[in-house]
């Protein structure tokens, strides 16, 4: 099976403090370091395992610019056979619907049996996979926690629902699945692996190479527009215990005793 995985480069929240910039129009991007959206690693790992079980290739794709080549190479170092960059000035400022339309145009230039995305990215929208499926008229399932390839062009999948319960579905191929974190253990990528793919070419496609539907991509077609960021006011937040660690522990032990925390 040939699998496409849609990935995204995001600010690395483990390495950066995310704050709004001075005028609140964006997050502060000075000195920000970026990395692959962590949930996407689970999608790529799942794709690699499916491709190795069934025979086939894994392609990773992202919508962005030159800076995004790094994350494509990282996923290629994991084992993805090809990375593809979809970049065009006209793609700038696209909303989720615009990004899905750009991806749809790329999917229509190839043949993929299965399309995967991570469960969500930095903005927590969890939207592009479901939109892409609707645009392609493919079936879709979100929050997928296991995939089994069965006979007859079908998959048997589990979706994570409330309370840790799981829904089991049969789903026809081709389809789009959003992959929940924890589905597998994404393989480690070392510096050596990255170096080995450093010189591989990454093909780039823009609007002229793909039939991107006008009226979707770009800022002027966005139906949803972010105006800015702010830090929510701390209303009735925690009482912060101050002092040396020893003092803090004394205070905490007294509180825990009073609240029934020590048994």
């Amino acid at each position, binding site marked *: 099976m040939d699998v496409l995985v849609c990935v995204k480069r995001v600010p690395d*929240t483990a390495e950066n*403090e*995310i*704050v*709004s910039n001075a005028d609140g129009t964006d*997050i502060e991007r000075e000195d920000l370091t970026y990395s692959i959206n962590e949930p996407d690693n689970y999608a790529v790992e799942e794709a690699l395992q499916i491709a190795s079980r069934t025979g086939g290739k894994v392609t990773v794709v992202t919508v962005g610019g030159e800076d995004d080549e790094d994350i494509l190479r990282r996923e290629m170092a994991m084992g993805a056979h090809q990375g593809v960059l979809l970049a065009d000035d006209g793609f700038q400022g696209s909303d*989720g619907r615009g990004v899905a339309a750009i991806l749809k145009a790329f999917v229509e230039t190839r043949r993929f049996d299965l399309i995967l995305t991570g469960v969500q990215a930095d*903005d*927590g*929208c*969890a*939207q*592009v996979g*479901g939109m892409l*499926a*609707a645009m392609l008229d493919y*079936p*879709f399932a*979100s*929050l997928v926690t296991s995939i089994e390839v069965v006979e007859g062009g079908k998959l*048997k999948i589990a*979706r994570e*629902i*409330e*309370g*840790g*319960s*799981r*829904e*089991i*579905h*049969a*789903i*026809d191929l081709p*389809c789009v699945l959003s992959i929940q974190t*924890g589905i597998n253990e994404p393989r480690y990528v070392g510096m050596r692996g990255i170096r080995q793919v450093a010189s591989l070419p990454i093909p780039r496609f823009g609007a002229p190479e793909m039939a991107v539907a006008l009226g979707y991509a770009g800022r002027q077609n966005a*139906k*949803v*527009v*972010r*105006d800015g*960021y*702010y*830090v*929510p006011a*701390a209303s009735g*937040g*925690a*009482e*912060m*215990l101050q002092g040396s*660690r020893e003092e*803090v*522990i004394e205070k*905490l032990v007294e*509180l825990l005793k009073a609240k*029934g*925390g*020590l*048994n």
Partner: protein
Amino acid sequence: MPRIFSYILHKNGAADDSALELIAAAGKIDPSQPPAAVVCGWGRELDEVCQKLRASYAEVWRIGCEPLAYPDAELLRMVLARALPPGSILLVPHGHFGVDLSPGLAIRWNAAYAPDVVDIEGVDGRWLKIVRQEYAGIISARYRCDISGGAVLNLRPGAFRPVEMAPVSGQVIDHSANAGELTARRTHLETIPAEIGDVDITREAVLVSVGRGIEDRENIAIAEDLAEAMGAAVSCSRPVVDAKWLDKSRQVGSSGKTVRPKVYLACGISGSFQHMAGLKGNPFVVAINKNPKAPIFRVADIGIVDDILEFLPELASRVREETAIPGRERRRP
């Protein structure tokens, strides 16, 4: 202003709590227009929900057909695309069902989609002004959403407080005929309930809960040692389960267990809304996190900025001094 509908989640003949929250949200979009409820399902349970909703919705759109007996988003997307008037605004609770249903429905309608909305600030011409949270709740974002062609808005459960209202004695209108032919390329086979695991964290009075801040599999022992000293059990947030450091049955959150302890020690947990959704019964929450900006400090009772890997062992030995009674066995050896 487009017509506003609430998508009603229901189970065993009862509507989900979100049914009232969606009315509150609709009031923030258009105070002059009470929303209509859309209820899909099958059989006696569907009728029971519709009857109950008459107290809070002036209009209840009932869509009943057998394939909808289980709420499968792939089928329901088809039904809603046909049955609701073009250009409507549909409000959906943001959860595992809404995430499955809504992005594709917005595409079918060629309408705007806004996920996980936590507040609505009003309408300016064709733009609806909404608030979302990003980067796992660290920062809030203001968005505008073009509702001139309709919209699907997924609303965060608990974010919109139901407003007091007199019972309305609404009418149930059957729209089942508009569901049309339902053919799915995804079929629900079964639902497997969650496993209980070695420790049932839903029955524990005190939980020492660890998150990403525990950093490594070996460090789980630090939390276990403190829990033993306190007579507590160890639970965790999602990243710890994803890394396979603890079993899924130990996870607190919307996709894990719902717990009701007296005391909850959140150690190295950032406090995403999915995690906090699993914490009920108003426990005494102590948050320990080295990031002073962690969202957990906005909801905890007591906050401590420190490195849990150093703080927890010291707390454990201090607790042991406090609780050590010679000859007495600990409750949890």
